[in-house]
Structure formats: structure tokens, C-alpha cells
């Protein structure tokens, strides 16, 4: 009968779709264990960022490998390895892909989670997240792009300095890994000749957990659990003993304090400004005969972090920030501005599907890990196949993220120097293909971040330099065709970002890691 064959057909269709797994796999779910092509045993001599010396914080001489107390630590590992649970194995596998990589992913997750603009008060003003009261709405922080760029940079820079110090002591004390000392301990990750004291996993766990107290205070508990998991993986995998971990975590936390002290005085705390400051931007811009930026949020929201441009950069001094700020944008009354405005309108009036996809691919707006997070993803996923040591990973991520943060500083300085209106302000018929950011137009943040990232990544990974340039151009173009920016914002942004990253390249050439 006909309907029976139809029934059969539909049964097959239902079974096919139901049996298709709905589980979504992440690109980094099933990575092989990190197996460095070089252990970089001399990384203790690499140039640190804030630490004056790699041995600023003393690490005690470890017990000899035949000391009875050390033997007891080895016995602990042997006991643990006798009954490893599937969860413990998964945990080892997860962290074995690379500590710097995993902590970077966890940072990106936190940034995405907290990147939500506060809801307005009943009177149309907006509450400001407070680090003194982080659990009250709006939760602290609002990890918008400048906040995120700075957070990524502090974490990456602190991890780098901490690992340089870690490597210094590894080389100094040369305590072999447990699996080297005791043949009955299984190396559940690739065995190397890297000394185990202090544990690099614990250094990373300690320095990152400590930094989080400042950057994501509501997440301290969850982060502490991750830190413990990272350390447990190091022990059960046979690569570190209890004393390797204890020394590493202490060292990491001490070094974090140096970065926290800097962060408390880097002017980020003053980046919000006051209503008087906000009004001043309008007055100053109007006095120059230019149309000042107006928030297109409803109710009108104060511009995002107006004084982030005064935050102390990592790669150069504040005088250099001013030198890197580009010349003004085309006057709001100029013919060039009219031409550029018309160009934006033409792109958005009847957008192509291809352009819409480009805009959303690079959108990195509310609820995402931001453009700096996107470039961390690009870098991390490229570095996976490069077989860097943990310390080399940290060095490269620090160079990337210091470039991104400093690019953000110069970009924000430029934005609030010129206070230039967005295309949709000058022509309300311009509708955007992704959310319109709430800060002035010139220069494009996406372009500046991308110019910086592509430049430093092209230096660190020359095989991919052309691809990075193409990605930066795409990210930049997405802001023009999406109706967020004029061509000038994008072109100049790319150049300024690249100029910032030159300072990172200069540093990289001389840091001893090449």
C-alpha cells in the first residue's frame, strides 16, 4: 500500500535524524599532548616584562631525590596511578594539550560570559560595575573590548614572567621528573628532559588564579577548582610531585602580585570618567567646528571607557601613545566625509549575503570574547601544531596580548581625542549588520586590534604572515560593509595597530627567545 511505503520513508528519515548525534565538538576537544620540539632549558635567561630578575622571588633548594620525604612523594604518585579514574584521565588529557592554551581558553570563556552591557536604571542612567561590590548587578566586570584586551595582556604577561622564573629554577636545581627518577612511575604525557622543580603547571595555575582575583573576582572559586585540576593532572600524569607543585604555585602567586600592583595603578580604574568629563568631550569637539559623537543607544549611554586611552601600556610609555595617535579624521563637514558616508550607505542599503556573513564572522560583539579574544583564538589554534614549550607559548601569547592591549590604548586615545560620529549618526538611514558599539568612530577598534595582531603574529609565525594580513583586512572591511565605520576609520586603524605591534617585534627580537 502506498501509504505504508510513505510511512517507511518517514520512519527512515526520523531514525536518520534522531540517530545523528547532536553533540557539538569543539576544535580543541581532542588535541594530542603538547610535545615540545625544544624544552628551552635556557628560558630562565629570557627578558622578563615586569620582574627585575628571574630570581626576584626565592625558591628553596628541593630535597634530594633519595631523601625519604621525596620518596614518599613518589609513592603518592604511584598510589594514585594504581587507580586512575576515567575523569582523571580526561583531566590529564585536557591539560596535556598545553597549560597556556587551556588557561587562554578559560580566559576567553570568562570574557564572553561577562561581556554584556549593563541594563539601564529606572531614570535612564546606567549603573557602573564595581570591583568593590562585584556580585551586585551589574556584575563586575563588564568585559568589553578594552577591558578584555587589558585582562588578556595582564594574564599573558604574568604567565610569561612566572614561567621564565620557573625555568630559571628548573635549570638551577635540575630535579628530574618523577617518571625519570622512578621507573615504576608512568609518564602519562610525553616524557621530556625538562626538570620538574618547580612545576610549570602549578606556576601557571598559581599565577593565573591569583590574577583572577583582580580581573574576575566573582569567578575566584571556579578558577581555584581549575587550578587544582591542573595541578592534579601534573601529579597523576607522573610529571610533578607534591613539592614541585607547592613550590610552583607559591612562585606563581608571588609573581602575580607584581602584576596586580601594576594593574592597580595603571589608570584603568579611572577609565570611566565622570558626567563632567563626558560633557567636555562634546564641548571640545563642537568648539573645533566638528559634529560630536552622540550615543545611539536608547537611553543614551555614556561612551565606553573614555579614559582607557590613558592606561599605562606595556610596550612603550605614555608619551609614545600620544605619538602613535594618528592625524584627525576627515572633517564632518568635508566632501570626503560625505563621500565616505555615501559609501557606507551603499554597502548597507542592499547588503550582499557574503558581506553579511563577513560582518557576523568578525562581529565579536556583545556576549563574545571580543576582537582581542578572536585573535587569541587564531593564534592559539595556529600555535598548537608548532610544538612550542610552555614558556615559548607564554612568550608568544604575551607579545600578542601586549600588542592588543597597547593597540586598544592608542585606539581609545584616538577615539576620544576626535570624538567622531558614527555613520548611523550622520545618516540615520544607515542600518547596521551587527550591533553598533557605543563609542566614537575614528579609528576602528577592530581594525586597530587586527592590524596589531596580524603584524606580531606574522613575525612569530612567518609562514602564516600573508594569511594574518588577509584576516586583518577582512576584519577591518567587515566594519565598513557592516555600516559601523567609514573607510578612513578602517584604513588608519590597521596602520596604527601595525605601528603598535612594531614595538612588540622590537622586543621579541631582543628577548633571548629566538
Amino acid at each position, binding site marked *: 500500500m502506498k501509504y505504508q511505503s510513505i510511512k517507511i520513508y518517514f520512519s527512515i528519515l526520523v531514525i536518520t*535524524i534522531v540517530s545523528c548525534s547532536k553533540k557539538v565538538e*569543539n576544535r580543541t576537544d581532542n588535541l594530542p599532548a603538547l610535545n615540545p620540539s625544544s624544552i628551552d632549558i635556557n628560558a630562565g635567561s629570557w627578558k622578563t616584562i615586569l620582574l627585575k630578575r628571574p630570581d626576584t622571588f626565592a625558591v628553596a633548594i628541593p630535597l634530594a631525590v633519595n631523601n625519604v620525604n621525596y620518596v614518599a612523594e613518589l609513592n603518592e604518585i604511584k598510589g594514585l596511578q594504581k587507580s586512575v579514574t576515567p575523569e582523571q584521565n580526561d583531566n590529564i588529557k585536557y591539560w596535556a594539550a598545553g597549560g597556556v592554551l587551556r588557561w587562554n581558553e578559560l580566559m576567553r570563556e570568562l570574557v564572553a560570559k561577562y561581556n554584556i552591557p549593563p541594563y539601564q536604571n529606572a531614570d535612564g542612567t546606567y549603573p557602573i560595575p564595581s570591583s568593590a561590590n562585584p556580585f551586585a548587578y551589574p556584575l563586575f566586570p563588564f568585559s568589553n573590548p578594552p577591558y578584555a584586551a587589558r585582562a588578556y595582556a595582564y594574564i599573558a604577561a604574568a604567565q610569561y614572567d612566572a614561567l621564565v622564573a620557573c625555568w630559571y629554577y628548573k635549570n638551577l636545581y635540575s630535579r628530574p621528573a618523577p617518571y625519570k627518577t622512578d621507573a615504576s612511575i608512568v609518564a602519562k604525557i610525553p616524557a621530556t628532559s625538562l626538570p620538574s622543580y618547580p612545576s610549570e603547571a602549578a606556576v601557571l595555575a598559581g599565577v593565573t588564579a591569583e590574577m583572577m582575583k583582580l580581573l574576575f573576582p566573582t569567578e575566584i572559586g571556579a578558577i581555584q577548582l581549575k587550578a587544582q585540576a591542573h595541578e592534579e593532572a601534573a601529579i597523576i600524569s607522573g610529571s610533578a610531585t607534591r613539592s614541585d607543585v607547592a613550590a610552583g604555585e607559591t612562585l606563581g602567586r608571588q609573581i602575580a602580585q607584581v602584576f596586580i600592583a601594576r594593574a592597580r595603578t595603571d589608570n584603568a580604574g579611572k577609565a570611566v570618567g565622570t558626567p563632567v568629563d563626558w560633557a567636555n568631550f562634546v564641548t571640545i569637539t563642537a568648539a573645533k567646528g566638528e559634529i560630536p559623537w552622540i550615543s545611539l543607544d536608547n*537611553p543614551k549611554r555614556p561612551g565606553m571607557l573614555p579614559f582607557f586611552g590613558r592606561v599605562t601600556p606595556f610596550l612603550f610609555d605614555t608619551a609614545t601613545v600620544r605619538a602613535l595617535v594618528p592625524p584627525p579624521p576627515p572633517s564632518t563637514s568635508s566632501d570626503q566625509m560625505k563621500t565616505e558616508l555615501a559609501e557606507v550607505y551603499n554597502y548597507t542599503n542592499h547588503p550582499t549575503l557574503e558581506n553579511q556573513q563577513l560582518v557576523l*564572522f568578525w562581529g565579536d560583539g556583545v556576549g*563574545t570574547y571580543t576582537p582581542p579574544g578572536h585573535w587569541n*583564538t587564531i593564534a592559539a589554534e595556529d600555535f598548537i601544531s608548532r610544538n612550542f614549550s610552555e614558556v615559548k607559548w607564554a612568550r608568544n601569547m604575551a607579545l600578542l596580548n601586549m600588542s592588543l592591549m597597547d593597540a586598544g590604548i592608542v585606539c581609545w586615545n584616538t577615539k576620544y581625542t576626535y570624538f567622531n560620529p558614527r555613520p548611523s549618526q550622520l545618516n540615520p538611514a544607515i542600518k547596521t549588520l551587527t550591533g*553598533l558599539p557605543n563609542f566614537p568612530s575614528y579609528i576602528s577598534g577592530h581594525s586597530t586590534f587586527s592590524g596589531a595582531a596580524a603584524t606580531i603574529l606574522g613575525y612569530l609565525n612567518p609562514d602564516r604572515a600573508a594569511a594574518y594580513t588577509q584576516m586583518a583586512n577582512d576584519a577591518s572591511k567587515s566594519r565598513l560593509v557592516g555600516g559601523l565605520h567609514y573607510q578612513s576609520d578602517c584604513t588608519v586603524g590597521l596602520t596604527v595597530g601595525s605601528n603598535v605591534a612594531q614595538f612588540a617585534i622590537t622586543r621579541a627580537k631582543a628577548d633571548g627567545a629566538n
Partner: protein
Amino acid sequence: MNLLNSNKLLLIVMGIVFSITSLYAQTDQDAIMMNKNLFCTGLTYNTNSWNKYWEGTNLRDNLNIGTISTNEISIMGNYGVKDNLNILFNAPYVSTKASAGVLHAMSGIQDFSAWVKWMPIEKELKHGTFSLYLLGGASLPMTNYIVDFLPLSIGLKSSTVSGRLMLDYQLGKFFVTGSETYTVRGNTKLERNSYYTTSLYLTNEVSMPDVNTISLRTGFRSNWLIAEAIITDMKTLGGFDISKNNMPFPSNKMNATSIAANFKYEIQKVKGLSLVGGASHVIAGRNVGQSTGYYGGLFYILDFSKKKSTKETTNNSSSQNK
């Protein structure tokens, strides 16, 4: 006959908006069959809008979007393979826009859907008639439209498969129909390659929770007029809430309880021509718009049977043909 149904309900929008089009007369949702070799086809226009939505369970407005309105034109068809076996399809063009803010309007051809509708049991009781229906449906995106632009995306671009059990009882001109529908939703793909739900994902693929819908309808049903009231409860089995002041996301937990009224009128003077119309309103929800919608449509029945004359039906509870 309109094929819009509960999955459609979701597909139409980000769940924030959605049109309660599941409620039209003579559709995959109702206990009416086309007789063998008859083909009913037509167009409907559907409009709905909302200016408040549930952010999780909190009903709020949003001055940056104002009122979101969705308009849809659908072409539909229902073919009688046998008197108790029909095939139905629907193909919509959808456009959306926001009355405030700067976000761009969207439009495009959305998802094709089809149902097989089978009535294995139709039983005359001492009082009235009881019938049982089994339906299987599927939907497939027809174009590569934008997903990651909620609440203005025209759909969620997820392929679906649905199964439905429907029971109908008619006594004289009055009827009551109850149905339950389970919809399996395939993964959708975003235009970006990373996203955050309640954790970070490094992929463009989004796992979509399934949906279960229960519907109850009752009213007057004769050969030339149907007037009915409907209550529908749609639940997403999984998914997560929109966090405060965040953007909506395709795999949000979208629940909605809606009420609607419908009519279908057979124009006596033109054989085979009928008018449909109705209104609907979401009375409770979660991560969806508090939408109100209206629709109207025109249908015509073509006879492909060998003998030219169409069969005249009696007061059959479950066969609607002219």
C-alpha cells in the same frame, strides 16, 4: 491550508518573535482530510509583532529595537493521495524589521516544510465520530539565510523532523481536537566559529534542543464554515535563558503558551474557493516575544480525479472536500 506548525512557530523566529501560525484551519494541525486526487493550494499572509519579550522569565521592553514585526507570505498545498492519506507542504518568504535602533531589517525565503498526514482510524460512535491521526513532518532551510542576527534573523536554519499524534471527536457541528507534537531539531550553524551559551564553544555548530507542543482546539465545523478557538503550549526541551540584557541565541529555551481564534469559510458561489483568517496572542512565555499576530489567506481546490465531477461529502467529520 497552512502548513505552518509548531516547529514553524519556532523557526519563524528566534523564538523571540513568533507567529502563531500553527492554528490555521485545514492544516497539518487539524482533523480534516482532503479526499483522494484533490489538491488544495493557496497563499497566506501573516503578520505579527511584539514590543515586549521574556528575557528568561522576566518580561521587558527594549528601546533599542522598539517593536519587532515579522511579515510572511506562504504558498501552501495539500494533496489527497487517498481519502485518509494527505501530503502537505509549505514554503514561506519572511521579512523582519525593528521600529527603533540601528539594526538592519532582514528578509528571505525560509524553510520548506512537508507533512504526511494519515488517518488510520475513523469510527462512528453512538454519539458522534472519533478519529485518530498520525503525522510525520520535516522541514529544511531553502536558502542560506542569516541565523546569527536574532531577533531579526528570519529563522534558525535548523532542519527538523516531527511526529504528531492527533485525536478528534465531532458531535454534530461541534468538535474538539487534541494533539501532541515532538520535533527533533538538527544542529544549526552560525556565521561565526565560536560562541558562548553557558560555556564557550569553539565551533560554528550549535546543538538545538528538541521541542514538544501540545494543542487543544474546539469550535464549530461544517462543510462551509469552521470557527475555532485554540490553545497551544510549546516547550523547548533544554536550552538556556537569555541572561540579563544579553542577545537572544538560537538554542535558548523558548517556551510559549498562545491562544488563537480561526475561521475558514467556503465561498458558496465559487466552487472550491475558501477564505481563511485568524488572530493569535502569546499569553505566557520564556525567551520569546509577547507577540500578537493576524493572518488571512485564500485557497482553491483543484480536482485531479479521473471523473471530472468532485465527490460531494456528507457531514463527515473528517473529510473536507468540495
